[in-house]
């Protein structure tokens, strides 16, 4: 379709292959920017680049030569302040806290002594974006090494000053002290007047998780006080002197082109400026109320273009995909069974409570934009392209936003605000309405998933074939021991604009696979837990399955009438998860209520256990929406449930009893935790509904209007 935006449907591996930005920092410019003192640098070979000529050893440090690609840096100033610069952004996942924790750990400081500068394209090194559970997987270990490097450097400086062996010195509470109660010096005094730049080595002596004292503990949210007092400014709260409020005229439907426009009534409203630039029509005013009135006063006619509606979606997907696996003729060996099924997932919306917002200011051909995005550097590129200016002329800042869940990777709102600001010659703030966010952002992709498996009568998986059409490849390969396995994701045309979403395709692929596993277990007459354990070798996966089942009481409890139990497990983004769910199917409405969940998660050593649990609880709540009732409805190029009274998101009354188990093995690498804990929920709920009612549901959402009386067609 002609109006299709660039597709942002990507796996994190694909996103990592983005070209890395070369900031052209010199030692002098860096020290000028951060002040004198000590700087430790992370070069990009540590970040992602496959080949890089830079040396990372200790040799050659401190000279004028600088690595050209930087991942993060840490500065210790003469007042002893430790500042960490990273392009990652904080959106409620509490990485401002967890990253400060790992640095504090290595520098033997408290978290409150660490300042995190994040998500500012002029001040922080390039970062591909905050998504894919990458922060804790990649940045956190890097910052551990940065902290360790700075610690060793401080010890060396003190040893040199006193002419002693650094091994006789310790760092604690911001001071280097001689063992046995000798001399002592503050880290600020050591850093004072220095102009030392050191590159971080691959083998910095980081503190093992088994010895963590600050990392690994439930430190409170950094800056929490500002959030409960209203001091914390979100993007949509920011103002600039002389700022105007913007609004944009939206097409009547997807793909519609502007036929005619009469903005005279809008232009007649005092203080309103109408901006027209091709099909782009917007206004600015002294306040958002007047700006909205002006938009409402514009008379526009649109030429619509034909669009697929939700009722036709999966028929269209099937047409594009070709015949299902159930239509395939297969010769089966004796003592084996084959089951082929198709599963679907609907488009759903992220619904960040703060819609897209941006504040744009031009100074000549230099542009500064504060905007709610998970990819400040990606948005900088979009802005530079949109206005044909060099990236160096664009600064994007993301101080704080009302979250994203994968839904704020793009810069459309930033571009619109900058477009208006350029035309009116004043700073412009644009905050999308909820309806705009529901319509003109992007969605989690819908998907059609075909699965066929061959299983022995004894319950051993023998063959597996799986095809995902449209929703993506994440977690598509089965983690079960299967001698013969095919798993492929296929790109097909999507009628709606689609992009990343928390856990993205892992939720879809898990739903299809784990529902199929439940169906296979019933086919061979085995308990679904027993069936899984018979086909899983990975000890960490078995570990989470055992832990969840035991706490849940899988073996000992029987569900009440109208209730059902379900179990599912998964592996994704270096984390292992298992969820047991109890559901109730209520009375005549047959509405599904999630009663209780137990989720066990193994993502290596946990940096902040309470915040990890908070994430896990949040993911059960968010995940139950997409599992049971959330779906975007669309007809003739319009979203027909683009509001919070027509699109249902989970509320207090949907909350189940939630139990979270952290395996927290100290001897494994740390992985992220903001996505994977949600991926086993939907199939566990589906299996629970099957147990409660005997009805097998194969579509997400499972029961937006209650559980039907009979199975969905396969």
């Amino acid at each position: 379709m002609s109006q299709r935006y660039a597709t942002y449907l990507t796996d994190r591996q694909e996103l990592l292959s983005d070209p890395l930005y070369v900031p052209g920092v010199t030692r002098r410019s860096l020290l000028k920017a951060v002040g004198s003192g000590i700087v430790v640098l992370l070069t990009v070979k540590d970040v992602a680049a496959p080949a890089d000529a830079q040396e990372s050893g200790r040799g050659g440090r401190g000279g004028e030569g600088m690595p050209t690609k930087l991942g993060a840096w840490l500065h210790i100033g003469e007042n002893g302040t430790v500042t960490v610069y990273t392009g990652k952004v904080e959106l409620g996942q509490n990485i401002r806290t967890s990253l400060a924790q790992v640095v504090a750990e290595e520098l033997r400081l408290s978290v409150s002594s660490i300042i995190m500068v994040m998500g500012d394209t002029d001040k922080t090194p390039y970062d591909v974006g905050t998504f894919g559970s990458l922060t804790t997987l990649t940045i956190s270990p890097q910052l551990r090494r940065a902290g360790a490097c700075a610690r060793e450097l401080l010890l060396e400086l003190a040893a040199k000053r006193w002419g002693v062996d650094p091994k006789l010195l310790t760092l604690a509470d911001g001071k280097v002290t001689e063992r046995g109660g000798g001399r002592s010096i503050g880290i600020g005094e050591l850093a004072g007047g220095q102009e030392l730049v050191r590159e971080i080595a691959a083998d910095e002596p980081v503190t093992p998780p088994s010895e963590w004292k600050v990392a690994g503990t439930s430190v409170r949210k950094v800056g929490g006080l500002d959030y409960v007092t209203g001091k914390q400014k979100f993007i949509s709260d920011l103002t600039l002197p002389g700022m105007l409020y913007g609004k944009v005229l939206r097409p009547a439907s997807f793909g519609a082109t502007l036929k005619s426009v009469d903005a005279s009534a809008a232009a007649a409203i005092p203080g309103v400026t109408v901006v027209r630039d091709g099909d782009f029509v917007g206004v600015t005013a002294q306040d958002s109320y007047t700006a909205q009135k002006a938009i409402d006063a514009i008379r526009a006619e649109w030429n619509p273009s034909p669009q697929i509606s939700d009722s036709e979606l999966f028929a269209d997907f099937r047409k594009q995909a070709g015949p299902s696996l159930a239509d395939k003729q297969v010769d089966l060996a004796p003592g084996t069974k084959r089951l082929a099924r198709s599963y679907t997932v609907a488009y759903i919306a992220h619904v960040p409570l703060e819609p897209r917002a941006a504040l744009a200011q031009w100074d000549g051909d230099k542009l500064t934009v504060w905007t709610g995005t998970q990819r400040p550097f990606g948005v900088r590129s979009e802005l530079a392209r949109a206005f044909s200016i060099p990236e160096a002329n664009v600064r994007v800042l993301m101080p704080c936003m009302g979250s994203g869940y994968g839904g704020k990777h793009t810069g459309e709102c930033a571009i619109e605000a900058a477009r208006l600001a350029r035309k009116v010659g004043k700073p412009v703030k644009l905050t999308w309405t909820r309806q705009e966010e529901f319509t003109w952002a992007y969605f989690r992709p819908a998907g059609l998933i075909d699965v066929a498996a061959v299983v022995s009568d004894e319950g051993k998986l023998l063959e597996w074939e799986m095809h995902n059409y449209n929703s993506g490849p994440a977690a598509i390969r089965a983690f079960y021991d299967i001698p013969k396995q095919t798993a492929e994701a296929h790109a097909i045309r999507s009628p709606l604009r689609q992009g990343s979403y928390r856990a993205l395709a892992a939720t879809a692929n898990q739903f299809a696979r784990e529902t199929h596993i439940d169906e296979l277990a019933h086919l061979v007459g085995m308990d679904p837990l027993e069936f899984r354990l018979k086909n899983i070798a990975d000890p960490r996966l078995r570990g989470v399955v055992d832990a969840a089942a035991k706490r849940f009481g899988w073996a000992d409890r029987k569900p009440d009438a109208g209730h059902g139990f379900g179990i599912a497990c998964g592996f994704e983004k270096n984390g292992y998860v298992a969820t047991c769910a109890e559901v109730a199917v209520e009375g005549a409405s047959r509405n599904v209520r999630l009663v209780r969940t137990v989720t066990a998660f193994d993502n290596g050593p946990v940096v902040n256990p309470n915040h990890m649990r908070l994430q896990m609880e949040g993911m059960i709540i968010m995940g139950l929406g997409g599992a049971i009732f959330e779906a975007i409805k669309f007809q003739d190029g319009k979203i027909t449930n683009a509001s919070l009274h027509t699109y249902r998101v989970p509320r207090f009354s949907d909350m189940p009893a939630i139990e979270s188990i952290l395996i927290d093995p100290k001897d494994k690498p740390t992985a992220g935790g903001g996505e994977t804990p949600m991926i086993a929920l939907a199939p566990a709920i589906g299996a629970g509904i099957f147990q409660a009612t005997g009805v097998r549901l194969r579509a997400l959402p499972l029961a937006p209007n209650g559980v039907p009386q009979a199975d969905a067609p396969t």
Partner: protein
Amino acid sequence: MAESIELSVNGARHRLTVDPDRPLLSVLREELDITGPKYGCGEAQCGACTVLVDGEPRRSCITPVSAVARKQITTIEGLAKDGKLHPVQEAFLNAEALQCGYCTPGMILSAVALLRSNPNPTDQQIISYMNGNICRCGTYPRIVAAIHEAARAMNGGRK
């Protein structure tokens, strides 16, 4: 047409010339730079814009500014007294009852209003009262815990 309206917000009086139909939320945020109340939906469905009007929770996104003239409006900025947090604010911090924090001002003010009308609510009463406030990050269990903790603190530690 614009009218002269007096607003009393967090104990301070403001005289403004505004369209009487303009939503209170827009006036607080854009005329007075009181940004604790947030825009979330514009249709009283999410509670992010909640303020207290004479102690009662109101969705400021659908409340015309003229309807609250000369009434006592409290926003999250006016909840702490003499630098001391309200027990509900304390409890939200203790329970880590937030992630991104965008819903937090509305959640706290709704919880304050709940405890004013029912100092010792059950889980079910909390769920039912708070059901008009959305937290998309899903911190509901923590918020329920925080409200219980605040209730205990406000009842002098008894519950």
